[in-house]
Each structure stands twice: as structure tokens, then as C-alpha cells.
């Protein structure tokens, strides 16, 4: 069923990174360690993009998520004092959240994953083809009048709003 070639091995390695990193984020007692585990998990995500023949997205993941967002998360963790040693990992409703988590997983599998990518689904498992679009096609699509030029501009508006909002929130209100 699964042939053991380099791609499969790479897939399992990246899956291990993503999952182990995610488990580390939620179960580590030291917030900074949690942030570093997050970086490992994001790195696994970048690996998946490479396996899907989308190297641009992989590099964007590393550049933006690991190079900017993870650093901001570490800064934010350091803004809060003495959060480096938490004593309790679980609160008293851990059994409830466990049940909800398992239910969600089952729901996703039956409702979304199997009908689309399962054996009788709409899009049965097929290997990633070689005819993938290049970054140049992405560039053309971003400014083409019939394609994505409007989302392109809306994205820039969103970024402007984000920056203005962040500055309004973060600046000192008494130096006005």
C-alpha cells in the first residue's frame, strides 16, 4: 500500500516534527520551551509544503512564521513576568476537554476527510502531479483583472488595518 521511498520517509519525519512540536507546545511547563516547540511544529509544516511541490509557500512559512511570528511570540512571552515555570498542566475539567477533542477528531474524519479523500470519495487519493503552477504563475494571477487582483488589494488593506490597530493598542496613551 505504502511504498517506502524517500518521500514517504520525509513525510513521516515532517509529520513527527509537526505532531511532537504541537504536543510539546501544550504540555511544556516552560513557556519559552513551548515557543521553541512551536517553531519545530511550524518547521514540519514548511516541510509539508515542500513535499506538495510548493516551495514558495514553504519559504514563506519559514520567513514569516518562524522568522517573524515566532519571534513576536517569544517577545510576548517575555513581556509577562515569571511565566517560565508553571506548576499545573491540567485543570479539573480535563476529562471533558478530552471527550470534546476525540469527538471533534471523529467528526472531522467522518464528515470531511473520508468523503473527500477516502476511497469512495470525490477526490480519491492521487499522487501530486508534476504540473504544478510556478511562482511566476502566482505573480501573474495576483494582478490579473479576472483573477486575484481584488483580494491582492484587500490583503494590503488588511495589513494596513492590522498595523494601525497594533500601533493604537501598543503605544503609550500618556504621551499624546
Amino acid at each position: 500500500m505504502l511504498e517506502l521511498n524517500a518521500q514517504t520517509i520525509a513525510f513521516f519525519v515532517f509529520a513527527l516534527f509537526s505532531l511532537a512540536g504541537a504536543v510539546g507546545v501544550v504540555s511544556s511547563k516552560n513557556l519559552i520551551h513551548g515557543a521553541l516547540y512551536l517553531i519545530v511544529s511550524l518547521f514540519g509544516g514548511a516541510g509539508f509544503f515542500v513535499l506538495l511541490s510548493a516551495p514558495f509557500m514553504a519559504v514563506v512559512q519559514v520567513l514569516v512564521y518562524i522568522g517573524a511570528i515566532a519571534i513576536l511570540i517569544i517577545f510576548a512571552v517575555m513581556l509577562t513576568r515569571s511565566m517560565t515555570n508553571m506548576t499545573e498542566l491540567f485543570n479539573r475539567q480535563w476529562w471533558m476537554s478530552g471527550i470534546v477533542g476525540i469527538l471533534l477528531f471523529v467528526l472531522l474524519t467522518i464528515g470531511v476527510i473520508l468523503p473527500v479523500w477516502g476511497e469512495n470519495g470525490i477526490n480519491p487519493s492521487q499522487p501530486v502531479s508534476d504540473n504544478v503552477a510556478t511562482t511566476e504563475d502566482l505573480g501573474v494571477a495576483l494582478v490579473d483583472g479576472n483573477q486575484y487582483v481584488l483580494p491582492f488589494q484587500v490583503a494590503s488593506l488588511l495589513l494596513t488595518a492590522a498595523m494601525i490597530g497594533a500601533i493604537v493598542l501598543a503605544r503609550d496613551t500618556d504621551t499624546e
Partner: protein
Amino acid sequence: MEQQCINVIETMALCLTSSGVDPGLAQFISIFIGVILVAIFPLVLVIILIWLERKIAARVQDRIGPNRVGPFGLFQNIADAVKLIIKEDITPAGADRLIYNLAPIIATLSTTLMWAVIPFSPVHIGVDLSIGVLYFTAIGSIGTLAIMMAGWSSNNKYALLGAFRVVAQLVSYEIPMVLALLVPVMIAGTLSMQGIVVAQLGMWFIVPAFLSAVIFYISNLAETGRAPFDLIEAESELVAGYNIEYSGMKFGLFMANEFMHAFTANLLFAVIFLGGWSGPGATQLPVLGFVYLFIKTLIVYIPSLILRATVPRVRIDQMMSFNWKFLVPVAIVNVIMVAFLIQVTKAVGLAPAPGETDFLAHLPQSVILLLGNLVVIAGILTYLRGIGRKARLESTVVAKAHDVPQVAAH
């Protein structure tokens, strides 16, 4: 089967396969050997680089520099490395051991990884990624993370403060650097490093993208922590910043990484703006490509060494204002100007066809772009002169107001 060398990897695998080795294994062996070669090269080079730096700094300061150990002091660094290896490693109490030990390795790894996409000659490149330019930007941002880890895990206030300042500096100067990189990408039409070098066979990009080259050079100085932006190692201010608690070979690795990073940044400048391996005879004899590339890198690297020994350090607030209030707006104006002029030259019909290697075919567009660059630079200088004049007028007015009472007292 006789096939021409396209890429160190592809040919070796083919030759191994043709001599009876299993194709998958042959591919892996060739990748393995390629990785070893590309990874060892910078580490070996750094020994000579440190020597070069010390000699040049010494000559600028009118002294000789290392000259005892070996001829012209060439083995000084080996002696230093041996000293660092046998030094006791003092890990501070309360330091986070795993991250403390991991930080220098990740920092060095991030610099070494950049060498995988550098085209040394028409046929020698680690791997010609289709997004090479973005790749080395992303890898550079991993280096920033390593410094953060180093500063935090030392369990030392000064290390943490130093690490914050360094990360703020590195992160800020990444923006004009990447903005300046947009221009060669626009002119070449590709993100792959080999593609950018091939696009320069007609005209080196330093001519049409002059302002971008200047911005890229300045941002590189700041990104690698070189003078005048060397707050990272401001010995008189923060006692070596994030390096405080590092001793022995870990400190040696950080230092070696800094020199290697500076050289790599200048190597990238040579590849993107000075034509990489291109030169007379490089396509026929690949070894010449290596030679040309290193000569061009030294042409830009040695001035940065001399700059280091010459220029005073800037303050952190001056550095940040310089970046966000000067370099970023200039870089944005530069991108818009080049974009506009490329469209104009294309509409008029002066742009060369893609793939042209003729110097004269590239000349019209390059000259127009160069003129555009010079106009923007002239505009900026005039604006700065206006500001300077206003500031000087204000200070002389203030001085005159102070002079009057003294004259009256006589």
C-alpha cells in the same frame, strides 16, 4: 555515456548508475558528497577570513597584525582554535542547558545553509532552487532566532538586553534588504540564483539597480553586525551582549559565524549585483567562474573590513531612525521607480528580450534605469541638504542670541 556536467549532483548520479549502482543509492551518494563539500567549504574559508580581517585592521591602524605563528601569521587562527578548544567551558548556574548549547550550532547552521544555493560557476551549484533569493532570506531569519535563544538561555540580564537589541536591529534591517532585492528579481524575472547570474551576462545589475545595490550593501552591514552597526558586540556598552556567558569553543563558534556571515553576505552581493561567476571565459572553463566570484567578493568584502577599522559606531536610536525613516522609504521609492521605468522601456521597445547576452542590447534599458536611480539619489541628497541647512540656520540663530549679552557686557 559521455554527458556534459550540468550540476555536480546530476552527473555523478548518472555516472554511478551507468557503472552499475542502484539509481536511488547513486542519487543519495551524490547528494551526500555535494552536501559535505558545500558545508565544509565555508568553515575552512573562515580561517583565512579571520586572518585577512586582522591583517587589514592592523594595517589601517598602522601596525603589523599577527606575524609570529607561521609565515605572515597565517596559522594564528589554528592556534586560536586550539586554545578555544582546550578552554574550560563554564556554564552559568541556572542556564537552560539544551538551548544554551544549541544556539551556536543553529547560528552556524543558518549561515552554512546559505551556501547551498550560491552559484560558483555555470555548472557548479549546490542546488539551483527555483526560489533561491527567498530561501537565503528565510535562512537568515533563522539566525536571528538563534541569537534570541542564546541571549535568553544565559540567565543573565545583560545577555537578555543585548539579545533584544540585536534582534530589533536584525529584524528592522531585513526590510530594506528584501525591498532592495525586489529590483534584481524584477529585472531578471526569476528568483533562482543561477537565473539571476545568467541574466547578468549582458549587464551587471549594479548598473541598472545602483540604488538597490547601495541599500543592499548598507543593510548587509547592519544584518551581519558589521561596523558602523556593530552594536551586537559593543564591548564598551553591554559587555559583549548576548555572548557574555559563552566561553570556549561555543564563543569561538559565534565569532566564526559572524565572520562567515559577513563573507556570505558579500558573496551574495557579488552574485546578485556584480554578476557572480560571469567574466571572460567562464562558460568554457568553469574553474574561472570560481576565481571571478571570489575576486568580486573580495572587492566588496575588503572595503567592509576597512570600514570596520575606520568608522565609529552609531547609537541604537540613530540606527533605528536611519532604518525606518530613511532606508525603508528610500527602498520603497526605489522599487516604484524601477517598476515604472521597466514598464516605460518595455512600452517604448528598448527592453532587451529575455535571454539576451549581448551587452549592447541591454545598454538602453540599463542606462535609463541608471539615470532614474541617479535622479532619485539626487533628489534625496537635495532633500537632506535642505534639512541640514535648516538645522544649521537654527543653530546659528540660537548662537547669535547668546552672543548679544556677552558683547554688551564688554
